[in-house]
Structures are given as C-alpha cells and as structure tokens.
C-alpha cells in the first residue's frame, strides 16, 4: 500500500486513490505524519488502529471534511496530497471531490422517506452531462431499493427501519451519488455481531462491483475486507505508521 516510486510516476486516469499525508494535525500537534496509501479501483483498503490514532481524520482529509471533524478550537490541517484518478483533490470542496462517505450511524435524513433519501443522492445529470428525467432518477431509486432488499419500503419513515436496513440504505445512498471513491467510517460498529457478519459480504460485494477505490476504517479485525490491504495506524504519541 505504500507507493513505490514506480506507482507515483504512473498516476493517471484510472489508477485509483493516492493519499500522501506529510502531516495531518493541528498547529501544535501532529495526529498523523508520513502516511502513504494507494488504493486501486475495485479494491478495499482497511485502515486500523486504536481510537484516537487519527483514522477518522485521515478519512476526513480525503473527503475534505476536516472542518467538521475538529470539534475543538484547533482546526485540523492537511499537508500532503490526495489524488483520485489523477485529479488532485486537496484544494477542492467536498461536494466537488466525488468521494462518498458512510458513517457508523446511517444518518438518514429524518424528514425524508427512505425513497426520498435515496433520490436526494441521485445526480440530476449523468456522468456524460446529459440531464436525466425524473422517471430515470426514480427508476434508479427503485433499483437501489431492490438491491438493498427493501422493495416496497420506499415510502417509509426511515426511523421505522431496523439497524441493518438503515445501514443498507445509507450505503445505497452513497453509491447512488456515483462517487469515484468511497470511504467507510466504522460502518458496522453499531450493529450486533450476527448482523455485522451478514452485512459485511453484502457491502463488500456492492462496493467492489462499482470498480472504485474504497477505504474502510475499523478497529475490528473481523471487518478486514482484504488481508493483503491493511494499514495499521499507531496512536498519535508514537511516531509514524507501520505497514502490514
């Protein structure tokens, strides 16, 4: 997962997500430094480490949401670069990055039905810039409901769904926005073990199908999607990450 110099030369149209973090932290305190990640399309990289080691901050740096992570008065800042399919993201606002996010809470909008939550994510125009009709967008929502095994439940109040159903809607919503990379921030940690075991293969299958790079943050060894692609972050007090 560390970039070889050869990789670095070949950053191009479809070579996935390259993250070079020289330093990530507040003015006084570095949370993560010297971290290099490369995730090819269709692969899932798992980022592990104890709480407080900056796992979620790494995701926020990739998604461009550092402002919403720093709860304290010291904002976190990134020195480094984030490249997605050859495009430098570090200076783009989140909504222009094409990076999807899924949190441990599904964060379904409570004032929208399940279908409206999904429709909210469907782009008004497709990747080639043609605007899609309402019927086309609705069709995509119905298809997503079907994939989430929630056919016929589109009109429901999201708060009436079970935890597993909510998690599936959250993932489908993120995918409907057609992200070019997806970040999963402890997506299973609020679910019980049995549900987690059911959901994991479903999630991995769906994200691999999209052929996009995926970063999964977890502290549970069982969540590891691909044992070949695991990065362990150490607690911030220690220097530097270790690679497996």
């Amino acid at each position: 997962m560390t970039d070889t110099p050869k990789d670095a030369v070949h950053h191009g149209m479809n070579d996935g997500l390259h993250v070079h973090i020289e330093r990530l932290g507040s003015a006084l305190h570095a949370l993560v430094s010297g971290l290099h990640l490369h995730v090819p399309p269709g692969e899932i990289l798992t980022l592990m480490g104890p709480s407080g080691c900056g796992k979620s901050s790494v995701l926020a740096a990739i998604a461009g949401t550092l402002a919403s992570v720093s709860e304290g008065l010291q904002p976190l800042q990134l020195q480094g670069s984030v490249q997605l399919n050859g495009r430098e993201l570090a200076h783009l606002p989140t909504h222009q990055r094409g990076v999807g996010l899924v949190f441990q809470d599904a964060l379904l909008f409570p004032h929208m039905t399940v279908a409206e939550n999904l429709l909210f994510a469907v782009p008004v125009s497709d990747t080639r810039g043609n605007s899609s009709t309402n019927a086309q967008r609705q069709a995509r929502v119905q298809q997503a409901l079907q994939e989430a095994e929630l056919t016929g439940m589109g009109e429901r109040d999201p708060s009436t769904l079970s935890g597993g159903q909510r998690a599936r809607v959250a993932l489908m919503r993120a995918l409907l926005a057609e992200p070019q990379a997806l970040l999963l921030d402890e997506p299973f940690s609020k679910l019980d073990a049995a549900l987690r075991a059911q959901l994991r293969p479903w999630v991995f299958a769906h994200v691999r199908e999209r052929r996009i790079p995926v970063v999964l943050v977890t502290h549970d060894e069982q969540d590891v999607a691909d044992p070949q692609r695991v990065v362990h972050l150490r607690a911030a007090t220690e220097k530097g990450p270790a690679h497996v």
Partner: protein
Amino acid sequence: MPTVKVLGPLLLALIAAVPIGAALWAVGAQMLDAAAWQALWADPQTWRAWGMTLWTGLASTALAWITVAHVLASGFIRQQLGRWLSHLPALLATPHAAMAIGLVLWLSPSGWALRLVSPGLTGFDAPPPWFTTQDPWGLGLILALWLKEVPFLLWVAATQMQREDLRRRWQAEYALAQTLGRTPAQAFAQIIWPQLAPRLRWPLLAVLAYGLTVVDMALIIGPASPPTLAVLAWQWLSDADLLTQSQGVAAAGWLTGTVLVSGVLMVVVLKALAASRPFASRGLLLQTAEDRAAVFHRGRLSLPPNVVWTLILGTYAAVWFALTVGSVSGVWPFPQVWPELWTLGAWQQVASSAHTVWTTLGLGVASASVCLLWSVAWLELAPRRWQQALQPWFLLPLVLPSVLWVVGLYSLALHTRLEGQWLGLSLAHAVMVLPYVLLALVPAYQAVDPRQAALVASLGHGRWVYLWRVKWPLLKRAIASAWAVGFAVSVAQYLPTLYVGAGRFATVTTEAVTLAAGAQRSLMSAYAALQMLLPILAFALAAWLGRPRRFEKIAPMKATP
C-alpha cells in the same frame, strides 16, 4: 475567499453590536451629571423604592428558581416533562401586562375572589378598602412575576433537555446513577440538575434583571407609594422638568448597578450551593414525595398531579377566563358573581381603533423577522469562537433595565432623526427582541450533527442544497418558534414603544397598561386579552409551520435485518 469568510460575520456582528454599544454610550454620557445624582440621593422616595425593588426582584427570582427545580425534577422523574411542557407556549405567550391585569381582576377588592365569597362568608355589600392589589408589601407583584418567570425558565430548560444528544445522555446517566444505588430524586439532584443548572444561569440572570427592573407589570399590580425604583425612574423620565428627567437617568443607572451587583452575587451563591455537597445529596427538598411517585409509576398506578405545576396552570386558566369575561362585561355590581349586562362594546371600541392592532402586528412581524434573519445568518456564518465571545454582548438587552435602554435608544433615535418614526421604533423593538430570538435558536443549532454537512457534501451537493433541503427543514420547528418568541416579545414592549415612539404609537400593550390605571374594566380586559391573543396566534402559526412531517402510516412489520 478568506476575506469574504471574515467580512460577512464581521458585518453581522457590527450590525447588532453597534446599536447596543451606541445606546449604552449615549446613556452613559447622560449619567455624568452630578446634580442629577445629588437629587437622586436627596429624594426621600429613592431608598424606600430601592428597598422595594430589591425585595420584589430577589424574592420572585428565588421563588421562581426553586419552583423550576421542583417542577423539572418532578416531571423528569415521572417522565412526564414532555407532556407538561406542551402547555408552555400558551403560558409563554401570555404577556406580563395581561397576566397582571388578569390577576387584578381576581384579587382587587371588587375582584372575583371576593365576589365568590361575598356577601355569604364576608358580609361585604361593597368592595372593602383593602390593598389587595398594589399592596404596599409588593406581594401581588411577586406573585405576578413568579407566575410569568417560571414558564420562561422551564422553556429554556426544555430547549436543553429536549436536545436529542443531551436527552439521550442524561437518560442514560440517570439510569446509571440508579443502578449505583441512588433513588430517582437523588439521581436527578446529583446527576442531571448539576449539569442543567449552569445552562440556566443566563436565563436566570435575565429573570433577576427583569424582576428588578420591570415597569409595566409594576405599574399595574406593584406597590404605589413608594413604587419600585424602576417605576419611579420611569415617572421621573417622563417628567417635563429637565432636572427630574436627569434624576430619572441617574435612577436608571443606579438600577443597572443594582442588577449587575445582584447578578454577580447570585452567580456566586449558586456556585456555592452547587459546590456544597450536603445540599446536593439531600436532593431538592422533594426527595421522598418524588421517590414515592416513581414507585407508583413503576406500579402503573395513576399519579397524583404535581401540586405546584397544577396550581400554575390553574392560575393561568383563571386569568384567561377573567380577561375573557371582563372584556364582555357591562354593568357588574359588587357582590354579584356574574355581570348583570353582557356587551361587546369594548370589542367594538377595539375594532374602531384597528390601527392600534395593525401597529402592534407591524412592529412584531418586522422586528421578529429582522432578528430571525440576523440570527440565522450569524449562526451560519460566524465561527463558533466568535459566537461564544460575542453572545454576552448580544444578550445585554435581556439583562440591563429597560429604563436604561429607552434612554439610550431614544437619544440614539434623536441623533439619527428616527425618534417618533416607525423605522426607529421597529429598530428599538429589534434590539429588545434579538436576545430572545438568539437564545431560542442557539440550542437547536448546537445540536446539529456536523457529520450531516459532510455527508451531504459527499453526495455531491453544495452548501445551499444542504441548507435548504436538509438543515433548515430539520430546524424549522426551532426557527418558527424563535420567530414567534420574537413576535411575542415585541408585542409585550411597553417602555420602548412609548418612549422611542415619542408617544405617537399606540399598541395593544400601551393601551392595556394605560387603561389599567382607569376604571374601564371591559376595555382594559379587551386590550389585555388581545395582547395575549396575538402572541398565541403567532405561536399557533409557528407550531403549524414547524409541525414535523407525517409519514404514511404503515403497519409495523417485523423488521428484518
């Protein structure tokens, strides 16, 4: 880009802070008048009025604080707080002046309380020469203040306790404390109350300041000779003589000092009480009763209602009823319980001076809307640090006496040639309304999950989509009710309307307070009822606008994972 990010909030801060600062500066300049202070000290009324001010203000605040602690504890332990507090908007919407007038209708020597027992029990055929309203001990004023301030404090507490994040955490901690062997009342007193009380400190300061400085209510139900210092200051300010006027300014300054010193003392006392563990572990004086109630609750027996809360609700209902009946009463000789003659004359008179109602509505809508727009813009744009640093400044109109503000705002209006103008008056209202709107909005804004913005952006939507389709729709209840609160505060303004409006604007409040000094019971009641009705309509509108979405009812199906 960074300059825009700083300029916007800077501009907003200036818009709100400059009028406040300029008004304070103007009044401060007028206070540098040695002759006025000498006249104030030399006046024999000053010290007795000041004593009356301290007594009514401190007693009503202490009573309100104890009552609020009791009602919150009782409601929380019985898990009925939500239900109880659903009555709050109606209580909040009842303006101070209307409450005072309603109480007078009950308590005065010719009031309902005595009519109900006369001549049967008392043998009175004529109203006795009693001081049951405007009593020289200030008890009527204390009662009226207590009745008005308890709902206000409860409402502020509710904005905290109904925040999703706090609610969940406190429920869990409360349950945890009980597993550690605390009774429900102890758990509340030791875990919830110490976290809640500091959040109520600012509102409590406002209550104290209000109690020490209220004018309209004290004119109606407060003692007359001597009146409270605020009323005295107001009388001096409205005097034609210039020296008397500056004596009024000095009195306003003295009152401000009183508010500041007692505010500091109050915070010190509260902190000392919070730090003394024996007090906390005894659990708010109601331990045994509430613990028994909690046991009842577990046994699914119906609970006896909370006495204090029932009493407050009952008094409000009685006041509304008295205002309604009073406004349609004609001839009504003393011991009779009901009027001899019913008439809509008073309401016809109100209708014939419809411009009074329009002025009230216009001022309320304008000032509430301006303050809401400003507050939303401020909370969206200003960095959290700025908000925290400047919040006390914006809340100043809440804690400094209105006799002080009217002097400052009036001279500000004079400088800008806005005195007696609609624009000047509505801006003066806005200054008084702003802290309430801001206080109503801040908790809802603080409860917004920052991840939600990140999530919406990750779906490819910009800031405006987030605001219009997610954040504001989710906050619409808080936004609508903040507007209604602002409207209600504007409707209730008495001093600024008279003083900054230079007497050229009549609102339902100025009419009601003026009439309270006279003998036209029905017209006074009608204006007081209207003064109450307008805010209630605003709250009803806000409740309708802020109603949560109703989803299609679907038979709950067994959730599959």
